[in-house]
């Protein structure tokens, strides 16, 4: 099956415009657009060139290596893979319940990860678009421009991320690619000095995180027309929620709602994820398209990540984030918010929640305990799910009697959002590009829609708006008619080919 604008009827008669790579996202992806001679959009596709070799080369390796090995999938949220793998492999060592110290240390690591990733995405990657405008001067539409025009906002962004990285360092051993979580528990707890080091700045972080929520909320209130409609489309939501229905980014059960907010399923044990999720393969993308089995391919696709989580949960356990969640729900009205730009608001509410959770955990003496490991009856299969910064992350392993991995299946957050991101760029292409001459500013609108999802395009390369971008306009025979290019130094040049 094919969605609207997914596949043009007569592609051979259309011009192809490519945004390759999409900038200010994690990793590499490209958008291709097919236009006719009146610049009417006939096909839009977001391609993500993910090489998923991990599922294969993890086979034959001992299971205790896996949490450290698979986190190399990513340099932005390795903690998410580290923890999802550890959770899955807890079942292999028979650890049905972790010790309080182990569970709290893992949660602390995870909230540090949410904080640093959300801060990086909002302040470094997206705030230039939101503060300056989508088609503003490209030379200043980056974090350096933000630092010049809004130095305090940039400073807070940098220091919030740094604090999150420090939480990770003290729980995992390193800021990136640590070893803190192991099957059955953790390998360290916090010393008193480490706890005090983090406590020193935590209240400042709470204050700044609250300020970040207010900043993005104000943007919605000031320009509701743009924020409510930009690339908007209706979709189902899915996320993990706590066993009490509250927001829980570390552990819980799966819940999904339809586009009107009605519950599709609830209380699903994620060990049974294969009973509810199916993945479709399309011949034009390396990334699969997951959908809810019960609804089929056409209607079963869904959205994950902050926008889903904030609207899927019944409440947030930390007081300041709960106040902000209620504001968000009230602003949305009767129907859920579907606008992609709402992701930013929801993401900042989660960042505030993560900082509040870090504060609470730092006041809990269990994080300095010495009982780190649990074990039990040996298992041979395990599923671990975590709400990573970008959405629901699923790790699934089978291990043989000799302790070697025989099967690995990973469904990462960005994969869940594949169809949703494609829908968003198609809406934006229709809204802004249809019938217009293509400019860099218009193409950035497409990128703004992709960025809202904070996709991690598999290799975690930082682009910061400086990645080279090339747009070619070809005639029906493939001859180049004109081109627009942006160099790594942000120099734009256009060229008309001699006819």
């Amino acid at each position, binding site marked *: 099956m094919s969605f609207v604008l997914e596949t043009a009827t007569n592609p051979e008669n259309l011009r192809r415009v490519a945004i390759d790579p999409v900038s200010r996202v994690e990793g590499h992806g490209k958008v291709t657009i097919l236009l006719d001679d009146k610049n009417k959009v006939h096909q839009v596709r977001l391609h993500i060139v993910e090489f998923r070799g991990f599922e294969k080369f993890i086979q*034959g*390796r*001992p299971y*205790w*290596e896996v*949490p*450290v*090995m698979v986190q*190399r999938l990513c340099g932005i949220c390795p903690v998410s893979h580290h923890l999802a793998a550890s959770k899955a492999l807890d079942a292999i*060592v028979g650890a049905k319940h972790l010790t309080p110290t182990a569970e709290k240390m893992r949660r602390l690591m995870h909230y540090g990860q949410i904080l640093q990733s959300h801060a990086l995405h909002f302040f470094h990657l997206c705030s230039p678009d939101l503060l300056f405008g989508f088609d503003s001067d490209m030379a200043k539409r980056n974090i350096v421009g933000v630092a010049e025009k809004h130095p305090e906002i940039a400073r807070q962004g940098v220091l919030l991320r740094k604090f999150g990285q420090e939480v990770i360092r003290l729980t*995992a*051993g*390193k800021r990136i*690619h*640590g*070893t*803190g979580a*192991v*099957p059955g528990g953790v*390998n*360290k707890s916090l010393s008193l000095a480490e706890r005090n080091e983090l406590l020193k700045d935590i209240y400042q972080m709470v204050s700044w995180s609250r300020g970040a929520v207010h900043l993005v909320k104000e943007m919605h209130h000031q320009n509701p027309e743009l924020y409510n409609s930009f690339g908007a489309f209706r979709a189902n939501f899915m996320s993990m929620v706590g066993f009490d229905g509250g927001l829980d980014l570390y552990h819980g059960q799966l819940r999904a709602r339809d586009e009107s907010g009605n519950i599709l399923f609830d209380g699903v044990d994620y060990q049974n994820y294969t009973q509810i999720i199916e993945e479709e393969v399309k011949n034009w993308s390396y990334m699969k398209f997951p959908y809810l089995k019960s609804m089929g391919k056409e209607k079963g696709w869904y959205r994950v990540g902050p926008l889903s989580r904030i609207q899927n949960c019944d409440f947030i356990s930390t007081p300041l984030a709960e106040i902000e969640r209620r504001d968000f729900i009230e602003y949305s009205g009767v129907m859920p918010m579907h606008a992609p730009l709402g992701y930013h608001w929801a993401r900042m509410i989660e960042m505030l929640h993560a900082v509040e959770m870090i504060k609470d955990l730092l006041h809990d003496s269990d994080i300095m305990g010495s009982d780190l490991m649990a074990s039990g009856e040996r298992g041979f299969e395990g599923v671990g799910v975590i709400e990573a910064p970008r959405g629901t992350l699923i790790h699934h392993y089978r291990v043989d009697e*000799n*302790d*070697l991995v025989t099967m690995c299946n990973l469904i990462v957050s960005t994969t869940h959002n594949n169809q949703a991101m494609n829908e968003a760029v198609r809406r934006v292409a229709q809204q802004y590009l249809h019938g217009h001459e293509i400019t860099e500013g218009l193409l950035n609108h497409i990128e703004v829609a992709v960025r809202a999802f904070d996709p991690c395009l598999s290799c975690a390369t930082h682009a910061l708006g400086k990645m080279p971008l090339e747009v070619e306009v070809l005639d029906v025979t493939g001859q180049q008619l004109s081109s627009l290019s942006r160099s790594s130094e942000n120099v734009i040049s256009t060229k008309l080919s001699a006819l």
Partner: protein
Amino acid sequence: MSQNSNTPHNKNQTTFTLDGKTIPFSEGQTIIQAAMAAGEYIPHLCFNPEFKPHGSCKICTVTANGRQTASCTQQPQVDMMVESDTKQINDERRALLQMLFVEGNHFCPSCEKSGDCQLQATAYELDMMSPHFDHFSPNRPLDASHGEYLLDFNRCILCSLCARASSDVDGKNVFSLAGRGIKTHLIVNSKSGKLADTDFTGDDKAAHVCPVGVIIKKRVGFAVPIGKRSFDEHPISATPHPIVKGAI
């Protein structure tokens, strides 16, 4: 500790100089043994003071009176001039290390011996910044047949310490080096070639001498946090022997 070349020493004691420092030695000691006793570090991999020298890895190469030799097998002579920490020798050592890295599959980022590995620590010591040579990427399946220990042949540097420990100390002859030249490889001496079919146990000396990550105790993994591993706080040159964590 070593004595400065200007420091007077016991006239009855035999000495040689190592990079300008006076090193005392006694009958039967090799250069590396005397240096180690004096607290001086000479990079090495196949040498372990508990075992007879093997002289195969050549990382401990020094110049003795102008001639290159393996310091683990060469005995010093009175007033011998030995040079170890020179640019030329360290460049050669680095090239040897690079060859060891590309001959096997050494994935430090996900290796549980990272931080406890003598090969990795020596590479850091000698400022090895890249493998330089093309990787061989050999296909070497693991032997996970034993209940308590796993063999990851990808990491073998052919130091033969496990073979020496098994035959010389354990009296079992579980491991051997087979093949010749570039085809030399570690084997398990059982009919099936599997560790499970030998009388190898965790109490064997051979279970605790591997300087890299070939002989791995199962289900331990990353139990030691970053910061507490053998070479986290001090480089290998400042870490007392025995440097292999868990050595008896």
